[in-house]
C-alpha cells in the first residue's frame, strides 16, 4: 500500500511541472516577438543599467540562515519524537526537554550577541 502512495507522489512530481509549463509554451506560440536592444536591458528605475547585478548585501542574511539551520535540524529531530510521544514515557520527555533547552541556549546566545538585530 505504502509503495503505491509513493508511486503517486512520483507521478505527481513528473506531472506537476507540465501544468505550469503548458500555458507558458502556449504563450510562446501566441505572443508577439519584437525585441529591441533597449527592451532586453534589465530594469533599473528607467535609467541605463550600471554595473553588475552582484552587489554587496547585508551579512545579516548569513546569520539568519545559520540560526535557521540549527532550528531546522532541531525540528527534524523533534518529528519522530512527536510521532512516538503517546508511547513514550516521562524519561523520553525529559530528554527532549534537555535537547530543546540546549538549543534555546543557542537562541539566547545569538540574541545576547545581537545576531538577531537588524542593524
Amino acid at each position, binding site marked *: 500500500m*505504502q509503495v*503505491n*502512495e509513493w*508511486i*503517486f*507522489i512520483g*507521478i*505527481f512530481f513528473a*506531472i*506537476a*511541472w507540465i*501544468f*505550469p*509549463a503548458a*500555458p*507558458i509554451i*502556449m*504563450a*510562446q506560440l*501566441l*505572443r*508577439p*516577438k*519584437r525585441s529591441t536592444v533597449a*527592451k*532586453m*536591458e*534589465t*530594469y*533599473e*528605475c528607467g535609467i541605463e543599467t550600471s554595473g553588475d*547585478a*552582484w*552587489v554587496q*548585501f*547585508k551579512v*545579516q*542574511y548569513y546569520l*539568519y*540562515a545559520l*540560526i*535557521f539551520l540549527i*532550528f*531546522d535540524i532541531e*525540528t527534524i529531530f*523533534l*518529528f519522530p519524537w*512527536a*510521532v*512516538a*510521544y*503517546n508511547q513514550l514515557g*516521562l524519561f523520553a*520527555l525529559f530528554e527532549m*526537554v534537555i535537547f*530543546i533547552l540546549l538549543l534555546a541556549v543557542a*537562541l539566547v546566545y545569538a*540574541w545576547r550577541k545581537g545576531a*538577531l538585530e*537588524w542593524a
Partner: protein
Amino acid sequence: MIEFLVNQGWDKDVATGVALLLGVVAVSTFGLLWIILGIWVERKFAGRVQDRLGPNRTGPYGLFQTFADLGKLLTKEDITPQGADKVIYNMAPLISVGAVLLIWAVVPFSKEWIGSDLNVGALYFTAVGSFGTLAILLAGWGSNNKYALLGAFRVIAQLVSYEVPMVLSILVPVLLSGSMSMQEIVNKQNIWYIFVSPIAALLFFISSLAEVGRSPFDLIEAESEIVAGFNIEYSGMKFGMFYAAEFLHAFTICVLASILFLGGWRGIGAEIPGVAGSLLGFVWLFTKTLGVYFLLMLIRNTVPRIRIDQMMAFNWKFLVPLSLVNLLVVAFVGKILQPDYVGVTAAATASSGLLSLVYQLLGPNLIAEIPRAVVIFIASVILWWLVSMVMQRYAIFEHLKAQTLVKEYKPYSPSPEQPTSAPVPSAGR
C-alpha cells in the same frame, strides 16, 4: 477505481497506473481551477473592503475577468533580459507552481478521497512547500537584476525564518495524534485541535501568513521599496505563473490550517461510507477552508505592511521562543491525562439510560479525549496570560525609553552659541 478497471478486463498494473494518473490529474486540476474562481473572489472582496465594486464588466458580476486576464497574459510579449541565466530564469516559475501543486497530493478531501496518504504527510508538505523558496531564489539570481536579487534575499530571509515557528506549531497536531499522516491526523481529531491548543493554531496561522507573503508580511512584493521584488524581470505568462503560485499557496495554507486544526473533512454526516459521505466531507473541508480564507483576505485588506527589522524581530524574539515553550507545555501537560480509549469504551458499553445516550451521541473516543483537551487548553490560557504580561512589561519599557529619548532630543542648530530655543528676531514682513 482500480477494482472497476480490473473488472473491465484490464491488467492489474496498468489499471493501477491509470488510476494513479487520473488521481494526479484530478487533484492538480482542482487546484488550478480554484485559482480561476478564487482570484475573482479575492478581487471582489478587496473591492468591497475598499468601498468599490471590484471587477464587474466582463461577464455576469465580472466572473470572466480572470479569463480576460489570462488572455492578456497569453498574448503579452515575453522578455528575457540580457545576461540572464536562461535555464534558471525559465525554471523558476515552473518550480514555484509545481511546489504548491505538490502539496495537494497529501490533502485529505474526505474519508476516502485523498491523493496519497503518506505516513510522513506533515513532513512532506513542509518539505515540498520549501521548493517555493528555492524557486524565488532562482528567479532572483537568474534575472541579472539588482532589485530582483535584493528582493530574493529578503524573501529567503523571511520564508526561512518563519518556517521555524510553522514547523514547531505543526508538531503539536502531530504530537497529539501520534502520526504524521494527514488522514490519521484528521481521523484522530475528535476534538478540533484549535480548541486543544489555540496557541499552536495561532502560531501556524501567523507564520503561514508570512510563508505565503500576505500582508502584513508582504515584503516579498514591497512595490514601494524594491519595485516588485524577485519577479521584476518576468513578464507575460511567466509572471502569471508566479502570481498563480502565490495565490494558490495562500489557499493551500488555509486548507492545511483547516486540516491540522479545524478537523479537516470531519462534520455531520462525513463518516458515512460511499460517495454521499465523501461529498459531505469535501463540503465540510471546503467550508472550513473558506472560513480561514475569509480571515486571510480580511487581514490582507486591513493591516499595513511591517518593516523588515520588525518582521525578523517578531519572528526570532517572539514566535520562535513562544512556539518552543508552547510545544513543551503541550507535551508536559498532555502526559498528565492520557486519553483512556479502552476504559471509556468499556464504560460506554456498561452505561445505561441517559448516560449511554450521551456516549452514543458524542462517541467514546471524543469523551476519552476531553480531559486531556481541557487540561491542555487551560495550560494554553495560562501560558497566553503570562505572555501577555511579558508583552505588557515590554511595551511599558519601550514607552519609557521613547519618552526619555524625546526629553533628551535637541533640535539641530547650526551654531552652538545661539540655540534655536531663543526666538530669532524677525525682520518684519
